[in-house]
């Protein structure tokens, strides 16, 4: 095991040398050290690549990810709707390994010792770091929905809110549902990952029903008071495209489920579906709490917006969906990628004895499909504000599409190709 690791490091060293000559013309490059990144999603893959690229190979980066390939949540609703395949949303980690010299380890992190600056791995052994980046995404609070709190229940009532086997399984449930059946999707109270995602999913399932099972219905059980994102554009799509198919119910929090009958238990009511898709409330990925860093409301990580460093635990940076969001900031893959770059820039400054940049900027773009071709977007730009010590949305900037359109359907796929390459190629 140790020999293997050493050999891997030698390989990384050779790649670093090659890269230093490739990028030798750029400035800086004084940072050195070992950064361990936990989680290879939109945030983690980005920070790993940008640390290597911006340090010209000077900083060693180990990325620990439990899955063998990256599978994208954005675009996965099209797999559920039947117009894309898993292959379309799967990207290899080979680019990070071979082009950027990131050491990618397929494993799970079991514990973090923030004093000794080590992590321990499920496969055994530990690893030391100079700086640690946690990009753990979210884990689900199954205890909030008692009937879902077993592995058996979770294999029947799916969330499909992490792209992967559940995406495939939900598609299969929809395919085997009878014409005339009901699909219900339960949305947790905000904040949750991808605010427009559940409404997009409702559209794409309805689009599938309209073409293949026209007597079927889609019911949205929303724990929130109202549609949380792109409201006007979604409700227009529902009335224009899916009248009589999609039904929206606000203030309908799922408190429990009866697994045997696919029944959602609401506060005063029950709802029985043929396919029941429950997205449970989430919190920061479990490793955040296990590492002992401060969580707000026992759920989200409190970070310093100049560096993405935990406010409680020096040396640990946290990015992506796991953080307590800045005002109006969505939990999105695009935003996680932006956090990754902010963290990479700050870490390189800190590893070379400088302060992080005092004026970080992050921005978000999110495209939602309302059918196989038509798309609506929301965008926002968030600039650091020293007075409130957070990033604030720029007033008068950002916004939504004027109307759903096919042009943005093409742009959405262009976005996917470019962000996946920005993270992984």
């Amino acid at each position, binding site marked *: 095991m140790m020999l293997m690791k050493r050999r891997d490091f030698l390989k990384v060293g050779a790649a670093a040398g090659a890269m230093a000559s490739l990028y030798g013309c750029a400035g800086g490059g004084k940072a050195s050290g070992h950064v361990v990144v936990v989680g290879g999603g939109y945030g983690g893959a980005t920070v790993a690549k940008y640390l290597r690229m911006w340090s010209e190979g000077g900083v060693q980066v180990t990325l620990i990810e439990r899955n063998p390939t990256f599978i994208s949540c954005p675009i996965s609703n099209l797999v559920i709707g039947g117009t894309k395949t898993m292959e379309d949303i799967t990207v290899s980690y080979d680019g990070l390994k071979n082009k950027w010299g990131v050491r990618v380890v397929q494993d799970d992190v079991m514990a973090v010792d923030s004093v000794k600056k080590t992590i321990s791995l499920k496969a055994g052994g530990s690893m030391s770091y100079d700086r640690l980046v946690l990009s753990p995404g979210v884990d689900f609070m199954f205890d909030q929905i008692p009937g879902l709190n077993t592995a058996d229940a979770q294999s029947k009532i799916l969330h499909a809110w992490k792209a992967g086997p559940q995406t495939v399984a939900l598609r299969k449930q929809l395919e085997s549902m009878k014409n005339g059946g009901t699909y219900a999707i339960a949305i947790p109270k905000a904040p949750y990952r991808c605010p427009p995602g559940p409404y997009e999913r409702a559209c794409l399932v309805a689009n599938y029903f309209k073409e293949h099972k026209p007597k079927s219905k889609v019911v949205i059980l929303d724990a929130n008071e109202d549609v949380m994102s792109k409201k006007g554009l979604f409700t227009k799509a529902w009335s224009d495209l899916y009248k009589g198919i999609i039904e929206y119910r606000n203030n309908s929090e799922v408190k429990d489920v009866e697994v045997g009958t696919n029944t959602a238990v609401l506060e005063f009511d029950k709802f029985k579906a043929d396919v029941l898709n429950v997205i449970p409330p989430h919190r920061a990925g479990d490793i955040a709490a296990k590492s002992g860093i401060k969580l707000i409301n026992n759920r989200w990580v409190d970070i310093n917006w100049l560096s993405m460093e935990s406010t409680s635990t020096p040396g640990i940076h946290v990015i992506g969906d796991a953080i307590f969001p800045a005002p109006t900031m969505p939990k999105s893959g695009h935003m996680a990628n932006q956090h990754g770059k902010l963290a990479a*820039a700050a870490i390189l400054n800190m590893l070379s004895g400088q302060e992080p940049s005092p004026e970080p900027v992050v*921005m978000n773009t999110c495209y939602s499909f309302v059918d196989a071709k038509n798309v609506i977007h929301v965008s926002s730009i968030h600039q650091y504000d020293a007075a409130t010590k957070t990033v604030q949305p720029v007033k008068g900037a950002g916004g939504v599409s004027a109307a759903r359109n096919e042009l943005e359907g093409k*742009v959405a*796929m262009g976005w996917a190709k470019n962000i996946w390459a920005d993270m992984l190629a």
Partner: protein
Amino acid sequence: MKPFMPIAALCLLALASTSQAADPNLGRNLAATCANCHGTNGNAVKGSGMDSLAGMEKTKTLQKLADFKSGDKPASIMHQIAKGYTDAQLDLIATYFAAQK
């Protein structure tokens, strides 16, 4: 109130110029916020339909961004995004992309 505004604006300008001096990588960092759609260092994925910005003449990039901001150039999304950055930031972004290959 009136005389206060230009002073506040001057203070902001002064702040902006000192912090730019403090962080030589500001242009690089700002340009990286564009990379999700326009590719790492402005090299968009070929065939993706997105504009590559790497190597684009600075004045050309700045003119495009100004036209997005003013609404002179119609766009699906860039008219909303360009408004989120200050002119000084857009200048740094355009400078960075002009220097990329």
